[in-house]
Structure formats: C-alpha cells, structure tokens
C-alpha cells in the first residue's frame, strides 16, 4: 500500500537515511499528508526527549584505571612488516627537512597503496592503544631534560624533545612502543585536550623526505624522515594544528 511505503520513508527521513531522490519524494508527501507529518513530528519529539531527558550514565571515575591495571604489561608483539620495502618514490619532498625552520610545510596527501596503509593503521593503532591501555607515558614529565635521556638510554634513536608549551603544545612525557615491528620512541604532547603521539624510530632508508599528511578514521598522521629517523605524528587534533606542531617540532 502506497501509504505504508510513505510511512517507511518518514522514519528513514527522520533518521537521515534517504538518498536525495527519495528525500524529495518523502518531503513532498509529508507536506500534503497530515498523518505522515504528525508521524515525523512525533519521531523527532521522541528523539529530542531521549537526547535531553534520558539519563546518560557516565563511566565511574575509577573504571579507566581499573581496566588499565588489568591489561597485560607486555607490549603487543611486533609484526614483520618491512617498512624499508616501501618504494622511496612514494615519499614526497626534496630532502630539505633539516632546513625547515620557519618554512611553511609542503604537505601532500597521497593516494597510498597497501603497505602505506598498513603503516598508517599501525601508527594510528599505536596511538589509539596508548590511550586505551591508559599507558600514555612511561616517564611522565613536562621536563624535556628528563624525557630525552630516558629515551636515549633505552632506544637506538635519540629524537629531539623540544619544549613547545609556549606555543600551545605542552610536553606530557615519553614512552617506549612497538610500531609495525619497530622499537619506537613515543614522545607525547598535548594540544588543548587532544593527545599527540610522536613516534620516532631508526630507519634504513637513506636521505631525508618531505612531510606528508594522511587522514584515516578521524586521525591525522604526518610522516617524514630526517637523519636516518622515521617520524610519525598522530592525533585526532585538526590537521592545521598538527601541521603547526610538526613545523615547530622539526624546526627546533
């Protein structure tokens, strides 16, 4: 029956589940049909009631810590994923990373292939895991003179740990992590309420690279390579703020 069909459309319209054509069809019908119009109103009223009046249960304060302490302490085992096989041609830029102080970043969004995607999800995975496990830092301090030696004592890389609090990116601490088979240094900064994980690990690839921005699942990742170290900055902060962060980080 035609009317029943329209009632389906009304629900889908209220739920924003109609394509453009059916949307027009449904809207036209509602303008002429008092019953469907009332139905739409009542669907929207119920939504408003649930959103404003239904008590929303927030996680109790101790729950995150409780889950964190129940998690296994050991890191997730590395997977053998040969980062060095990613063709150098995929990397954009002209090897000027070292001389970037004050220079605007050239950020290229690549249409990346399989291994690039694997790297991207490995890096994002590391970022998400760090927050999920409540294991953001091994050494929690805003003092870069503590973080840097702590990392270099444990890893074969010694990335710079610049002080960026004055620019709106306070240092939170450092951590060891495993990303895509690499033992990585993770330097943690904040931008407002967002966490930025900066991963750094030793790479066999020669030469410096440009910076590239990739977006996946709400996370922004900026990757580059300088002085034999691969860097990946990951966050759910807006792309321009992450770019600014990388600019400052790489410039110091």
């Amino acid at each position, binding site marked *: 029956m035609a009317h029943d069909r329209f009632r389906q459309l009304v*629900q889908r319209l209220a739920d924003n589940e109609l394509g453009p054509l059916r949307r027009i069809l449904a809207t036209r019908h509602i303008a002429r049909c008092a019953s469907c119009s009332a139905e739409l109103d*009542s669907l929207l009223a119920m939504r408003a*009631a649930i959103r404003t009046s239904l008590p*929303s*249960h*927030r996680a109790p304060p101790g729950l995150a810590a409780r889950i964190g302490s129940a998690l296994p302490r050991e890191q997730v085992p590395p997977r053998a994923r040969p980062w060095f096989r990613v063709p150098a041609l995929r990397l954009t830029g002209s090897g000027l990373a070292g001389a970037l102080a004050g220079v605007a970043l050239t950020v290229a969004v690549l249409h990346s292939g399989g291994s690039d995607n694997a790297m991207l999800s490995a890096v994002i995975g590391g970022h*998400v895991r760090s927050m*999920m496990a409540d294991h953001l830092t091994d050494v929690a301090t805003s003092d870069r003179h503590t973080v840097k030696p702590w990392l270099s004592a444990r890893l074969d890389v010694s990335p710079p740990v610049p002080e960026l609090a004055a620019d709106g990116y306070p240092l939170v601490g450092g951590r060891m992590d495993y990303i895509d088979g690499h033992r990585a240094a993770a330097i943690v900064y904040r931008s407002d309420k967002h966490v930025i994980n900066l991963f750094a690990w030793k790479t066999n690839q020669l030469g410096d690279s440009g910076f590239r921005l990739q977006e996946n699942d709400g996370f922004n990742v900026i990757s580059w390579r300088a002085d034999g170290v691969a860097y990946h900055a990951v966050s759910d902060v807006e792309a321009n703020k992450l770019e600014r962060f990388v600019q400052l980080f790489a410039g110091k």
Partner: protein
Amino acid sequence: MPHLDAAYNLARWLAGNPADAEDVVQDAYLRAFRYFDAFQGGNVRVWLLTIVRNSFLTWLKENRSGRLVFQAETPAIGVSGVEETAWGEPPPDPEALLLERIDSQTLARLMERLPAEYREVLLLRETEDLSYKEIAEVTGVPIGTVMSRLSRARLALRKLWLEAEASEASRGA
C-alpha cells in the same frame, strides 16, 4: 580511554546496574586491546560498542543462564496491542508530542520496561547517533531488521508513555 562513557552507557542500560556494567565494560576493553590487530578500520566507536554488546551477551550466559533478555522480535513486555506489522499503526498524533515534556525519571523507567533489543536499538540510534548500517554491524542483524525493530521500539515506547500518562491522569482525577 576512548569512548569509555559511550561503552559504559550502553553496558549500563543493557546490564541494568552499575556493578555488572563495569564488569562488562572491563571485559570488553580487555578484549578490544587483545584483538586490536583484528580491527579492520572504520569507526572505532562502532567497533568498541560491538565488543561491549558481545561481552554483555557472554556475561549474560555466564551469570543469568535461563533468563531470556534478547528475544526474537517480541512485543514490549506488558504493552497491550503493539502493532506487529513492520511499520506499526498510524500514530495517535497530538498526544505523541507530549513526549517532549516527559521527565527523565519517567523516561528512564519506561526504557527499562522495554525489551533489551528495543532499548538497545533506541540507544544506538538516538543517543549514539549511529546509522542503520552501523547499528546492523553492532547488533549483527540485517539492515532491514534494524529498520523494523527501530520502528517497533519507537511504537512500544510511545505506547508505554501514553499508558503512563493515562494512569497518571486517572490517579489525579
């Protein structure tokens, strides 16, 4: 921890009390952490809510064997005359708008009286703002089932509310 409030809210509405909800969420996050490599991309929140729901079902099996919480397309408990066609009967219109003025205690009580599958689909749609496709993913049913279940859930909640309203009025009289 990402999406902990959303995970807890769903667990709390499914399990019905804080202590069990906490156990369910803890189990879910431990699973999520263990199987993170299996995450195929997509929406992390949808993935986590799926795990929360599965943890809830496991918890249910272990702790409340015999009690049926999820039933196949049942009408709301204690609601008489819920239309069983996919899209329900025409709405008793102007009254439904009164829902806008419902107080949160009454609404919570009515939600608790809904069968778990109705409660769940309403939460995922209205509170979590998930699409039909995402709800289908979380609940493991086809999109068509999501649509008809949602329609019935809305109808059932509306009926319950009108009944509550009517009994309130008769008590007041």
